[in-house]
Protein backbone atom coordinates (compact mmCIF):
# COMPACT_ATOMS: atom_id res chain seq x y z
CA UNK A 1 0.00 0.00 0.00
CA UNK A 2 2.77 2.38 0.92
CA UNK A 3 4.35 1.80 -2.48
CA UNK A 4 1.33 3.35 -4.16
CA UNK A 5 1.24 6.14 -1.60
CA UNK A 6 4.89 6.95 -2.37
CA UNK A 7 4.16 6.85 -6.08
CA UNK A 8 1.27 9.29 -5.80
CA UNK A 9 3.38 11.54 -3.60
CA UNK A 10 5.98 11.52 -6.36
CA UNK A 11 3.38 12.35 -9.03
CA UNK A 12 1.95 15.32 -7.15
CA UNK A 13 5.23 16.63 -5.76
CA UNK A 14 6.22 20.18 -6.70
CA UNK A 15 9.51 18.82 -8.05
CA UNK A 16 7.54 17.43 -10.98
CA UNK A 17 7.40 20.95 -12.40
CA UNK A 18 11.21 21.29 -12.57
CA UNK A 19 14.07 19.47 -14.22
CA UNK A 20 14.66 18.36 -17.77
CA UNK A 21 11.30 16.59 -18.02
CA UNK A 22 8.57 18.39 -16.06
CA UNK A 23 5.55 16.12 -15.78
CA UNK A 24 2.96 18.24 -17.62
CA UNK A 25 5.45 18.85 -20.40
CA UNK A 26 6.25 15.18 -20.67
CA UNK A 27 2.59 14.18 -20.86
CA UNK A 28 2.14 16.74 -23.61
CA UNK A 29 5.25 15.48 -25.39
CA UNK A 30 3.97 11.93 -25.22
CA UNK A 31 0.54 12.87 -26.57
CA UNK A 32 2.11 14.99 -29.29
CA UNK A 33 4.22 12.12 -30.60
CA UNK A 34 1.21 9.81 -30.42
CA UNK A 35 -1.18 12.06 -32.29
CA UNK A 36 1.27 13.06 -34.99
CA UNK A 37 2.23 9.44 -35.66
CA UNK A 38 -1.37 8.18 -35.72
CA UNK A 39 -2.38 11.08 -37.97
CA UNK A 40 0.35 10.37 -40.49
CA UNK A 41 -0.40 6.65 -40.36
CA UNK A 42 -4.11 7.38 -40.84
CA UNK A 43 -3.50 9.58 -43.85
CA UNK A 44 -1.58 6.72 -45.43
CA UNK A 45 -3.60 3.75 -44.27
CA UNK A 46 -7.24 4.87 -44.42
CA UNK A 47 -7.40 5.54 -48.18
CA UNK A 48 -5.55 2.31 -48.87
CA UNK A 49 -7.79 0.33 -46.52
CA UNK A 50 -10.91 1.86 -48.03
CA UNK A 51 -9.69 1.08 -51.51
CA UNK A 52 -8.99 -2.54 -50.63
CA UNK A 53 -12.34 -2.84 -48.87
CA UNK A 54 -14.33 -1.20 -51.64
CA UNK A 55 -12.76 -2.99 -54.59
CA UNK A 56 -12.11 -6.24 -52.76
CA UNK A 57 -8.71 -6.51 -54.39
CA UNK A 58 -5.48 -6.81 -52.43
CA UNK A 59 -7.11 -7.96 -49.22
CA UNK A 60 -4.73 -10.85 -48.75
CA UNK A 61 -1.84 -8.43 -48.90
CA UNK A 62 -3.51 -6.34 -46.22
CA UNK A 63 -4.07 -9.35 -44.00
CA UNK A 64 -0.51 -10.62 -44.39
CA UNK A 65 0.80 -7.13 -43.71
CA UNK A 66 -1.19 -6.88 -40.50
CA UNK A 67 0.02 -10.25 -39.38
CA UNK A 68 3.66 -9.61 -40.21
CA UNK A 69 3.64 -6.20 -38.57
CA UNK A 70 2.55 -7.79 -35.32
CA UNK A 71 5.81 -9.75 -35.33
CA UNK A 72 8.04 -6.67 -35.49
CA UNK A 73 9.51 -5.77 -32.08
CA UNK A 74 8.81 -2.09 -31.47
CA UNK A 75 11.93 -1.45 -29.35
CA UNK A 76 14.08 -2.93 -32.09
CA UNK A 77 12.45 -0.90 -34.84
CA UNK A 78 12.85 2.38 -32.96
CA UNK A 79 16.49 1.68 -32.05
CA UNK A 80 17.24 0.57 -35.61
CA UNK A 81 15.78 3.60 -37.34
CA UNK A 82 17.37 6.05 -34.91
CA UNK A 83 20.72 4.31 -35.31
CA UNK A 84 20.43 4.42 -39.11
CA UNK A 85 19.30 8.01 -39.38
CA UNK A 86 21.59 9.52 -36.74
CA UNK A 87 20.98 12.11 -34.06
CA UNK A 88 20.27 15.09 -36.27
CA UNK A 89 16.94 13.61 -37.36
CA UNK A 90 16.41 11.36 -34.37
CA UNK A 91 12.85 12.51 -33.69
CA UNK A 92 11.80 12.04 -37.31
CA UNK A 93 13.30 8.56 -37.34
CA UNK A 94 11.38 7.62 -34.20
CA UNK A 95 8.14 8.99 -35.65
CA UNK A 96 8.68 6.90 -38.78
CA UNK A 97 8.94 3.84 -36.54
CA UNK A 98 5.72 4.80 -34.74
CA UNK A 99 3.93 5.36 -38.06
CA UNK A 100 5.05 2.00 -39.41
CA UNK A 101 3.71 0.27 -36.31
CA UNK A 102 0.40 2.15 -36.46
CA UNK A 103 -0.40 1.55 -40.13
CA UNK A 104 -1.46 -2.13 -39.95
CA UNK A 105 -4.21 -1.61 -37.34
CA UNK A 106 -5.65 1.39 -39.16
CA UNK A 107 -5.48 -0.39 -42.48
CA UNK A 108 -7.29 -3.39 -41.03
CA UNK A 109 -9.90 -1.15 -39.42
CA UNK A 110 -10.61 0.76 -42.61
CA UNK A 111 -10.76 -2.41 -44.66
CA UNK A 112 -12.88 -4.37 -42.19
CA UNK A 113 -15.25 -1.44 -41.74
CA UNK A 114 -16.05 -1.27 -45.41
CA UNK A 115 -16.30 -5.06 -45.78
CA UNK A 116 -18.58 -5.41 -42.79
CA UNK A 117 -21.32 -3.40 -44.44
CA UNK A 118 -24.22 -5.67 -45.35
CA UNK A 119 -24.02 -6.47 -49.06
CA UNK A 120 -27.75 -6.06 -49.30
CA UNK A 121 -27.46 -2.45 -48.23
CA UNK A 122 -24.77 -1.79 -50.82
CA UNK A 123 -26.87 -3.45 -53.50
CA UNK A 124 -29.86 -1.38 -52.46
CA UNK A 125 -27.79 1.77 -52.78
CA UNK A 126 -26.69 0.76 -56.26
CA UNK A 127 -30.25 -0.16 -57.18
CA UNK A 128 -31.42 3.29 -56.15
CA UNK A 129 -29.02 4.68 -58.73
CA UNK A 130 -26.03 5.85 -56.74
CA UNK A 131 -22.68 6.05 -58.46
CA UNK A 132 -19.86 3.92 -56.98
CA UNK A 133 -18.42 7.10 -55.51
CA UNK A 134 -21.72 7.95 -53.86
CA UNK A 135 -22.16 4.38 -52.63
CA UNK A 136 -18.80 4.60 -50.97
CA UNK A 137 -19.09 8.00 -49.35
CA UNK A 138 -22.74 7.88 -48.26
CA UNK A 139 -23.11 4.20 -47.40
CA UNK A 140 -19.93 2.19 -46.95
CA UNK A 141 -17.72 4.74 -45.25
CA UNK A 142 -20.23 5.96 -42.64
CA UNK A 143 -21.39 2.45 -41.79
CA UNK A 144 -17.78 1.33 -41.54
CA UNK A 145 -16.80 4.14 -39.20
CA UNK A 146 -17.11 2.20 -35.93
CA UNK A 147 -14.65 -0.47 -37.10
CA UNK A 148 -12.35 2.18 -38.54
CA UNK A 149 -12.37 3.98 -35.23
CA UNK A 150 -11.66 0.62 -33.60
CA UNK A 151 -8.57 0.38 -35.77
CA UNK A 152 -7.52 3.91 -34.87
CA UNK A 153 -8.04 3.09 -31.20
CA UNK A 154 -5.87 0.01 -31.49
CA UNK A 155 -3.16 1.92 -33.33
CA UNK A 156 -3.20 4.82 -30.87
CA UNK A 157 -2.72 2.55 -27.87
CA UNK A 158 0.08 0.69 -29.57
CA UNK A 159 1.84 3.97 -30.34
CA UNK A 160 1.37 5.16 -26.74
CA UNK A 161 3.14 2.00 -25.60
CA UNK A 162 5.91 2.40 -28.16
CA UNK A 163 6.48 6.08 -27.34
CA UNK A 164 6.92 4.93 -23.74
CA UNK A 165 9.67 2.58 -24.88
CA UNK A 166 11.04 5.36 -27.11
CA UNK A 167 12.47 7.00 -24.02
CA UNK A 168 15.31 4.51 -24.42
CA UNK A 169 16.61 6.49 -27.40
CA UNK A 170 16.33 9.77 -25.54
CA UNK A 171 13.01 10.81 -27.04
CA UNK A 172 11.50 11.93 -23.75
CA UNK A 173 7.95 10.85 -23.12
CA UNK A 174 6.56 9.15 -20.04
CA UNK A 175 8.94 6.20 -20.30
CA UNK A 176 11.74 8.56 -19.22
CA UNK A 177 10.71 8.39 -15.58
CA UNK A 178 10.79 4.62 -15.57
CA UNK A 179 14.14 4.35 -17.34
CA UNK A 180 15.70 7.05 -15.14
CA UNK A 181 14.26 5.52 -12.00
CA UNK A 182 15.95 2.15 -12.45
CA UNK A 183 19.62 3.16 -12.06
CA UNK A 184 18.62 5.74 -9.43
CA UNK A 185 16.85 2.98 -7.48
CA UNK A 186 13.75 5.12 -7.05
CA UNK A 187 10.75 2.86 -7.13
CA UNK A 188 8.36 5.70 -6.29
CA UNK A 189 9.43 7.30 -9.57
CA UNK A 190 9.13 4.06 -11.53
CA UNK A 191 5.68 3.33 -10.14
CA UNK A 192 4.62 6.97 -10.46
CA UNK A 193 5.68 7.05 -14.09
CA UNK A 194 3.91 3.75 -14.68
CA UNK A 195 0.68 5.03 -13.15
CA UNK A 196 0.74 8.19 -15.27
CA UNK A 197 1.37 6.35 -18.54
CA UNK A 198 -1.32 3.78 -17.73
CA UNK A 199 -3.76 6.57 -16.88
CA UNK A 200 -3.03 8.30 -20.18
CA UNK A 201 -3.61 5.04 -22.05
CA UNK A 202 -6.90 4.37 -20.25
CA UNK A 203 -8.17 7.89 -20.87
CA UNK A 204 -7.38 7.66 -24.58
CA UNK A 205 -9.06 4.24 -24.72
CA UNK A 206 -12.15 5.68 -23.06
CA UNK A 207 -12.28 8.59 -25.48
CA UNK A 208 -12.16 6.21 -28.43
CA UNK A 209 -14.80 3.96 -26.89
CA UNK A 210 -17.16 6.93 -26.64
CA UNK A 211 -16.26 7.98 -30.15
CA UNK A 212 -17.17 4.54 -31.47
CA UNK A 213 -20.59 4.85 -29.93
CA UNK A 214 -21.20 8.39 -31.06
CA UNK A 215 -20.16 7.69 -34.62
CA UNK A 216 -22.80 5.07 -35.35
CA UNK A 217 -25.34 6.77 -37.70
CA UNK A 218 -28.73 7.61 -36.18
CA UNK A 219 -30.52 5.41 -38.65
CA UNK A 220 -28.56 2.36 -37.61
CA UNK A 221 -29.20 2.89 -33.90
CA UNK A 222 -32.89 3.46 -34.57
CA UNK A 223 -33.03 0.33 -36.69
CA UNK A 224 -31.40 -1.75 -34.00
CA UNK A 225 -33.76 -0.40 -31.35
CA UNK A 226 -36.77 -1.19 -33.52
CA UNK A 227 -35.52 -4.75 -34.01
CA UNK A 228 -35.12 -5.23 -30.26
CA UNK A 229 -38.61 -3.91 -29.55
CA UNK A 230 -39.94 -6.22 -32.24
CA UNK A 231 -38.29 -9.35 -30.89
CA UNK A 232 -39.14 -8.44 -27.29
CA UNK A 233 -42.82 -8.09 -28.09
CA UNK A 234 -42.71 -11.35 -30.05
CA UNK A 235 -41.20 -13.11 -27.04
CA UNK A 236 -43.88 -11.71 -24.77
CA UNK A 237 -46.70 -12.90 -27.04
CA UNK A 238 -45.11 -16.36 -27.44
CA UNK A 239 -44.76 -16.77 -23.69
CA UNK A 240 -48.39 -15.71 -23.33
CA UNK A 241 -49.57 -18.28 -25.85
CA UNK A 242 -47.53 -21.08 -24.22
CA UNK A 243 -49.29 -20.48 -20.95
Amino acid sequence: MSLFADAFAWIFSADRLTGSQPLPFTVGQHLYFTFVSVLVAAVIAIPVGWLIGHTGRGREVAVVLSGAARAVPSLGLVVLLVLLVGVVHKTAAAVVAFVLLAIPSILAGAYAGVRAVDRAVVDAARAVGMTPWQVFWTVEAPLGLPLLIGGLRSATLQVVATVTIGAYVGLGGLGFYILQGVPLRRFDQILGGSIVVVAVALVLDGVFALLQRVVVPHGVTAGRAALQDDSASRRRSTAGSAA
Partner: protein
Amino acid sequence: MTWVLDNLGLITDLTVEHLRQSALPIVLGFLVSIPVGWAAFRYTAVRGPVLALVGLLYTIPSLGLFGLLAAALGISFLSETNLVVALTIYAVAIMTRSVADALDSVDRTVRDAATAMGYSPWRRFWTVELPLAGPVLLAGLRVTAVSTIALATVGILIGVENLGYLFTNGSQRRIVAEVLAGVVAVVLVAVVIDLLLVWVGRLVMPWLPRHSRRRAAARAARQAVAA
Protein backbone atom coordinates in the same frame (compact mmCIF):
# COMPACT_ATOMS: atom_id res chain seq x y z
CA MET B 1 26.38 -9.79 -42.80
CA THR B 2 29.74 -10.76 -41.36
CA TRP B 3 28.61 -9.64 -37.92
CA VAL B 4 25.81 -12.20 -37.98
CA LEU B 5 28.15 -14.99 -39.08
CA ASP B 6 30.67 -14.10 -36.38
CA ASN B 7 28.02 -14.09 -33.69
CA LEU B 8 25.79 -17.01 -34.63
CA GLY B 9 26.43 -18.61 -31.25
CA LEU B 10 25.23 -15.55 -29.39
CA ILE B 11 22.16 -15.21 -31.58
CA THR B 12 21.31 -18.88 -31.11
CA ASP B 13 21.67 -18.72 -27.33
CA LEU B 14 19.51 -15.62 -27.15
CA THR B 15 16.89 -17.22 -29.41
CA VAL B 16 16.64 -20.24 -27.14
CA GLU B 17 16.27 -17.97 -24.11
CA HIS B 18 13.65 -15.94 -25.96
CA LEU B 19 11.58 -18.99 -26.81
CA ARG B 20 11.85 -20.30 -23.27
CA GLN B 21 10.59 -16.99 -21.87
CA SER B 22 7.75 -16.74 -24.42
CA ALA B 23 6.48 -20.30 -24.13
CA LEU B 24 4.96 -20.16 -20.66
CA PRO B 25 2.93 -16.97 -21.25
CA ILE B 26 1.52 -18.35 -24.49
CA VAL B 27 0.52 -21.69 -22.97
CA LEU B 28 -0.72 -20.21 -19.72
CA GLY B 29 -2.57 -17.46 -21.56
CA PHE B 30 -4.30 -20.03 -23.72
CA LEU B 31 -5.25 -22.24 -20.78
CA VAL B 32 -6.52 -19.39 -18.59
CA SER B 33 -8.47 -17.77 -21.38
CA ILE B 34 -10.56 -20.86 -22.14
CA PRO B 35 -12.62 -20.88 -18.95
CA VAL B 36 -12.70 -17.08 -18.80
CA GLY B 37 -13.72 -16.77 -22.45
CA TRP B 38 -16.28 -19.50 -22.00
CA ALA B 39 -17.80 -17.64 -19.04
CA ALA B 40 -17.98 -14.48 -21.10
CA PHE B 41 -19.70 -16.41 -23.87
CA ARG B 42 -22.09 -18.36 -21.69
CA TYR B 43 -23.23 -15.73 -19.21
CA THR B 44 -24.24 -12.55 -21.00
CA ALA B 45 -24.30 -10.61 -17.75
CA VAL B 46 -20.62 -11.30 -17.24
CA ARG B 47 -19.63 -10.82 -20.88
CA GLY B 48 -19.46 -7.03 -20.90
CA PRO B 49 -17.35 -6.52 -17.76
CA VAL B 50 -15.04 -9.44 -18.54
CA LEU B 51 -14.31 -8.32 -22.08
CA ALA B 52 -13.98 -4.73 -20.93
CA LEU B 53 -11.52 -5.70 -18.19
CA VAL B 54 -9.55 -7.88 -20.57
CA GLY B 55 -9.51 -5.12 -23.17
CA LEU B 56 -8.29 -2.65 -20.60
CA LEU B 57 -5.42 -4.90 -19.63
CA TYR B 58 -4.26 -4.90 -23.21
CA THR B 59 -4.23 -1.11 -23.35
CA ILE B 60 -1.67 -0.88 -20.55
CA PRO B 61 1.76 -0.03 -21.98
CA SER B 62 4.25 -2.79 -21.17
CA LEU B 63 6.80 -0.63 -19.39
CA GLY B 64 4.01 0.70 -17.20
CA LEU B 65 2.59 -2.75 -16.49
CA PHE B 66 5.98 -3.93 -15.17
CA GLY B 67 5.90 -1.18 -12.54
CA LEU B 68 2.32 -1.92 -11.51
CA LEU B 69 2.97 -5.66 -11.25
CA ALA B 70 6.07 -5.18 -9.13
CA ALA B 71 4.09 -3.03 -6.71
CA ALA B 72 0.89 -5.07 -6.72
CA LEU B 73 2.40 -8.56 -6.56
CA GLY B 74 5.46 -7.84 -4.47
CA ILE B 75 7.82 -9.22 -7.11
CA SER B 76 11.09 -7.69 -8.18
CA PHE B 77 10.81 -5.08 -10.92
CA LEU B 78 13.98 -6.30 -12.62
CA SER B 79 13.09 -9.97 -12.94
CA GLU B 80 12.05 -12.61 -15.42
CA THR B 81 9.00 -13.29 -13.25
CA ASN B 82 7.83 -9.76 -13.88
CA LEU B 83 8.24 -10.20 -17.63
CA VAL B 84 6.50 -13.57 -17.73
CA VAL B 85 3.53 -12.39 -15.65
CA ALA B 86 3.12 -9.31 -17.86
CA LEU B 87 3.33 -11.36 -21.06
CA THR B 88 0.79 -13.82 -19.66
CA ILE B 89 -1.61 -11.00 -18.89
CA TYR B 90 -1.34 -9.71 -22.44
CA ALA B 91 -1.79 -13.24 -23.81
CA VAL B 92 -4.93 -13.74 -21.74
CA ALA B 93 -6.20 -10.35 -22.88
CA ILE B 94 -5.85 -11.25 -26.55
CA MET B 95 -6.95 -14.85 -26.26
CA THR B 96 -10.06 -14.39 -24.09
CA ARG B 97 -11.74 -12.36 -26.77
CA SER B 98 -10.83 -15.06 -29.29
CA VAL B 99 -12.32 -17.79 -27.13
CA ALA B 100 -15.57 -15.87 -26.71
CA ASP B 101 -15.75 -15.19 -30.44
CA ALA B 102 -14.80 -18.76 -31.27
CA LEU B 103 -17.56 -20.25 -29.16
CA ASP B 104 -19.91 -17.66 -30.60
CA SER B 105 -19.04 -18.79 -34.08
CA VAL B 106 -20.37 -22.29 -33.48
CA ASP B 107 -23.75 -22.62 -35.16
CA ARG B 108 -26.50 -22.52 -32.58
CA THR B 109 -28.42 -25.27 -34.30
CA VAL B 110 -25.49 -27.66 -33.92
CA ARG B 111 -25.36 -26.97 -30.19
CA ASP B 112 -29.10 -27.51 -29.93
CA ALA B 113 -28.86 -30.75 -31.88
CA ALA B 114 -26.22 -32.04 -29.49
CA THR B 115 -28.39 -31.14 -26.51
CA ALA B 116 -31.36 -32.79 -28.19
CA MET B 117 -29.30 -35.95 -28.63
CA GLY B 118 -28.67 -36.07 -24.90
CA TYR B 119 -25.18 -34.62 -24.57
CA SER B 120 -24.48 -33.15 -21.14
CA PRO B 121 -23.20 -29.55 -21.22
CA TRP B 122 -19.72 -30.75 -20.23
CA ARG B 123 -19.57 -33.35 -22.99
CA ARG B 124 -21.10 -30.95 -25.46
CA PHE B 125 -18.44 -28.35 -24.72
CA TRP B 126 -15.50 -30.69 -25.08
CA THR B 127 -16.69 -32.84 -28.00
CA VAL B 128 -18.79 -30.45 -30.05
CA GLU B 129 -18.31 -26.75 -29.32
CA LEU B 130 -14.56 -26.66 -28.73
CA PRO B 131 -13.64 -28.66 -31.85
CA LEU B 132 -15.95 -26.57 -33.99
CA ALA B 133 -14.52 -23.41 -32.46
CA GLY B 134 -11.07 -24.70 -33.33
CA PRO B 135 -10.27 -22.58 -36.39
CA VAL B 136 -11.06 -19.29 -34.67
CA LEU B 137 -9.23 -20.45 -31.56
CA LEU B 138 -6.20 -21.27 -33.63
CA ALA B 139 -6.30 -17.87 -35.33
CA GLY B 140 -6.38 -16.25 -31.90
CA LEU B 141 -3.56 -18.44 -30.63
CA ARG B 142 -1.41 -17.48 -33.61
CA VAL B 143 -1.99 -13.79 -32.95
CA THR B 144 -1.21 -14.33 -29.28
CA ALA B 145 2.00 -16.24 -29.99
CA VAL B 146 3.33 -13.72 -32.48
CA SER B 147 2.49 -10.77 -30.24
CA THR B 148 4.10 -12.41 -27.21
CA ILE B 149 7.31 -13.18 -29.06
CA ALA B 150 7.62 -9.59 -30.31
CA LEU B 151 6.69 -8.06 -26.97
CA ALA B 152 9.13 -10.20 -24.97
CA THR B 153 12.00 -8.09 -26.33
CA VAL B 154 10.99 -5.23 -24.05
CA GLY B 155 12.23 -7.43 -21.22
CA ILE B 156 15.77 -6.20 -21.83
CA LEU B 157 14.75 -2.87 -20.32
CA ILE B 158 14.04 -4.64 -17.04
CA GLY B 159 17.21 -6.65 -17.21
CA VAL B 160 15.86 -9.86 -18.73
CA GLU B 161 18.18 -11.10 -21.42
CA ASN B 162 16.64 -12.39 -24.65
CA LEU B 163 16.80 -11.28 -28.28
CA GLY B 164 16.18 -7.74 -27.00
CA TYR B 165 19.82 -7.76 -25.85
CA LEU B 166 20.82 -7.28 -29.49
CA PHE B 167 18.97 -3.96 -29.50
CA THR B 168 20.54 -2.44 -26.40
CA ASN B 169 24.01 -3.87 -26.97
CA GLY B 170 23.89 -2.83 -30.61
CA SER B 171 22.72 0.62 -29.56
CA GLN B 172 25.61 0.98 -27.09
CA ARG B 173 28.22 -0.14 -29.59
CA ARG B 174 26.49 1.62 -32.51
CA ILE B 175 26.48 -1.53 -34.63
CA VAL B 176 23.59 -1.47 -37.12
CA ALA B 177 24.07 -5.09 -38.15
CA GLU B 178 23.50 -6.25 -34.59
CA VAL B 179 20.23 -4.35 -34.14
CA LEU B 180 19.01 -5.41 -37.57
CA ALA B 181 19.90 -9.01 -36.82
CA GLY B 182 17.81 -8.75 -33.68
CA VAL B 183 14.76 -7.40 -35.50
CA VAL B 184 15.04 -10.01 -38.23
CA ALA B 185 15.58 -12.80 -35.71
CA VAL B 186 12.46 -11.88 -33.73
CA VAL B 187 10.34 -11.70 -36.89
CA LEU B 188 11.73 -15.03 -38.10
CA VAL B 189 11.08 -16.75 -34.78
CA ALA B 190 7.53 -15.40 -34.78
CA VAL B 191 6.92 -16.56 -38.35
CA VAL B 192 8.30 -20.02 -37.60
CA ILE B 193 6.13 -20.40 -34.51
CA ASP B 194 3.14 -19.18 -36.52
CA LEU B 195 3.75 -21.80 -39.23
CA LEU B 196 4.27 -24.42 -36.53
CA LEU B 197 0.88 -23.58 -35.05
CA VAL B 198 -0.76 -23.83 -38.46
CA TRP B 199 0.79 -27.26 -38.90
CA VAL B 200 -0.34 -28.33 -35.42
CA GLY B 201 -3.80 -27.04 -36.29
CA ARG B 202 -3.90 -29.26 -39.36
CA LEU B 203 -2.85 -32.25 -37.25
CA VAL B 204 -5.42 -31.59 -34.54
CA MET B 205 -8.27 -30.64 -36.85
CA PRO B 206 -7.84 -32.86 -39.93
CA TRP B 207 -11.44 -32.36 -40.92
CA LEU B 208 -10.90 -28.75 -41.98
CA PRO B 209 -10.53 -27.90 -45.66
CA ARG B 210 -6.93 -26.95 -46.22
CA HIS B 211 -7.43 -23.81 -48.20
CA SER B 212 -10.46 -21.94 -46.95
CA ARG B 213 -8.72 -18.72 -47.78
CA ARG B 214 -11.58 -16.32 -48.00
CA ARG B 215 -13.06 -17.21 -44.63
CA ALA B 216 -9.64 -17.25 -43.02
CA ALA B 217 -8.82 -13.89 -44.52
CA ALA B 218 -12.02 -12.34 -43.27
CA ARG B 219 -11.52 -13.77 -39.85
CA ALA B 220 -7.92 -12.67 -39.73
CA ALA B 221 -8.95 -9.17 -40.69
CA ARG B 222 -11.42 -9.07 -37.85
CA GLN B 223 -8.74 -10.41 -35.50
CA ALA B 224 -6.34 -7.74 -36.64
CA VAL B 225 -8.84 -5.06 -35.80
CA ALA B 226 -9.90 -6.63 -32.53
CA ALA B 227 -6.40 -7.03 -31.12
